[in-house]
């Protein structure tokens, strides 16, 4: 079939049996292929070499404070919605060296800057959900600004190959449809797949995607398959476990009402454990850590994930600007749904639902957003 030219925007059918060929092709191009797999009873992201590594037949039960993998026995590889991990760990690693210095051998009172030696891996991310793709694009706005390009993020992000997977079976804590990020991927992918019974419908999103697919054993996508995907996505849109209504109205509503008594009520349940910020695919806050060699000859500065729920996060001399859990939860939700718009011209939430599933106190972000927008008369 490959004598028919593929172009960006084309959709073809790739039999599931041919998928390993695509993976092999990507690895031959130098990509490390990463995908979902099961470890310790949860879906995580790690290296894959074949479809056999994927969680075929699994689905997940998710609810506030609840995440359970369930074996459903079906033939789908990408049906299980994400676990605690998100792809951000590949571009914004939990720990990375930002700068390193070595004492000047000729003058021990001075330091020399070490040029970074790190060779960044080339990633092919396989099975990126639309919500997660939207999250990556939000982090792009944070780390790759007009006036500032974070070198760690840029080096890892710019060469990455992204295979998105449209979501046909959203989970119980999913609300991407209401955040307008899913269940179908819009932009930012090299290839976008919809998983059907025997085939993946693959849409080409970029030149890199076109080249990776061109040498594979694809077939034309017939109307039957296209309709199946279309109706599946429409059904998924109707089957979201949760929703946030009119999220564009929230910045105004939340930022105007910072003293809402609901925050006191939330503070009684929230343990300020920072789980929500760690599982959130858009959270970008980081702290610095100084790392010294014991002989005092080398000092480096590391970047580590931080959270607005940590007390030290807002430390200033003489105190802390957010000493109470109430103010820390308020920072989290007003940032995600409110002030993020003013900073980055988008919401900071994509509706993936992780913060709900992984909250040990079962605090439901969508419920709190709805409660906080209610007019409260003092």
């Amino acid at each position, binding site marked *: 079939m490959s004598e028919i030219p593929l172009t960006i925007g084309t959709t073809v059918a790739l039999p599931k049996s041919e998928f390993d060929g695509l993976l092999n092709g990507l690895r031959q191009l130098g990509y490390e292929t990463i995908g979902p797999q099961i470890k310790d009873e949860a879906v995580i992201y790690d290296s894959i070499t074949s479809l056999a590594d994927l969680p075929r037949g699994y689905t997940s039960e998710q609810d506030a404070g609840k995440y359970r993998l369930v074996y459903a026995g079906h033939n789908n590889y990408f049906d299980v919605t994400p676990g605690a991990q998100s792809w951000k760990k590949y571009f914004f690693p939990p720990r990375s060296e930002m700068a390193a210095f070595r004492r000047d051998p000729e003058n021990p009172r*001075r330091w020399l*800057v070490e040029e970074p030696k790190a060779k960044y891996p080339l990633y092919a991310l396989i099975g990126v959900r639309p919500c997660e793709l939207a999250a990556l694009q939000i982090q792009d706005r944070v780390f790759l600004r007009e006036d500032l390009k974070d070198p760690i993020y840029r080096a890892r992000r710019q060469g990455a190959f992204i295979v998105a997977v449209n979501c046909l079976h959203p989970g119980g804590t999913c609300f991407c449809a209401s955040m307008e990020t899913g269940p179908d991927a819009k932009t930012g992918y090299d290839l976008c797949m919809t998983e059907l019974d025997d085939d993946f419908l693959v849409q080409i999103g970029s030149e890199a995607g076109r080249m990776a697919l061109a040498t594979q054993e694809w077939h034309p996508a017939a109307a039957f398959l296209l309709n199946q995907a279309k109706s599946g996505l429409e059904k998924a849109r109707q089957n979201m476990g949760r929703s946030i209504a009119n999220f564009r109205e929230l910045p105004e509503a939340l*930022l105007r009402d910072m003293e809402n008594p609901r925050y006191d009520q939330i503070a009684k349940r929230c343990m300020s454990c920072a789980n929500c910020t760690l599982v959130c695919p858009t959270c970008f806050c980081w702290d610095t850590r100084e790392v010294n060699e014991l002989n005092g000859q080398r000092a480096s500065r590391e970047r580590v994930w931080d959270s607005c729920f940590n007390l030290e996060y807002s430390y200033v001399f003489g105190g802390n600007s957010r000493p109470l859990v109430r103010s820390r939860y308020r920072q989290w939700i007003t940032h995600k749904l409110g002030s993020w718009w003013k900073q980055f011209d988008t919401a900071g939430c994509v509706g993936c639902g992780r913060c709900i599933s992984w909250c040990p106190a079962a605090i439901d972000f969508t419920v709190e957003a709805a409660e906080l927008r209610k007019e409260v008369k003092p």
Partner: protein
Amino acid sequence: MTTRTMELSAAIIPNKPMQPFWAVIDEIQSEAPSVSTFWLRFLDPGLQAGFRFQPGQFNMLLVPGVGESAISISSSAEDNKRVGHTIRFVGNVTTAISRLKVGDVLGVRGPFGTSWPIEKHVGQDIMIAAGGIGLPPLRTVIYHIINHRSDYGRVVVLYGARTPQDLQFTREYKEWEKAGIEVVVTVDRADDKWEGPVGVVPLLFYRLRMDPRKTVIFSCGPEIMLRFVVFEALARRISSDRIYISMERNMKCGQGFCGHCQMGPYFVCKDGPVFTYAQLEPYFNVEDI
């Protein structure tokens, strides 16, 4: 250390935002107990000659192995021979800085943040209200006014410290007064020799009669002081877009991508530290924001 001469007006590399530039400590001047001014000179002479900042901006100062701290520049923006930072020794980094000697080096990134818009208010009366370690970033404004005295009307400096010993830059007050600046200094706790006012800075407003139509306020100090400065200023009908305050928050990057310094929608390091009260008004009085 290889010295390169570069055409740089700032110690910032846009695609290496966390990379410092080395500066040698040229002189250390004691200002008060636990407060000293560190005069830095960039090792790269091209950068030293080209380095420009606006009054009110800050640098991130790095002690390798210890960490970075956001420190306001306290020297004149028109002095391109060296850059002064007046530092109070209170945390890990500043305590490590206090142990450094002339000839040691510090890493510098900057300048960052917004500035006191002194040039926007030519022809007007300037009121500077500073508390404690809030004076150093405003000293840059005082120097600007001295250098361009005829550009401004009445200029008043209100300054307060805990005790007379804690007052900074005392050797300069005469010079400021000679330039036609009213200097009113107060302390929280007087000693036997103190003859000036006792009390907090906002109380000094009651000693003055400022013309609200042409007065601009620049204020920096503890947040509680800022609250009352704003209160007194508004009570005197000085409009909220003519009250400028400099905020303090935890800062790790200085460029609005580590998240720590957020205050409502603002990154204090990038959108501030100098704000008009009109900008801050929806958030300033929210507790623990």
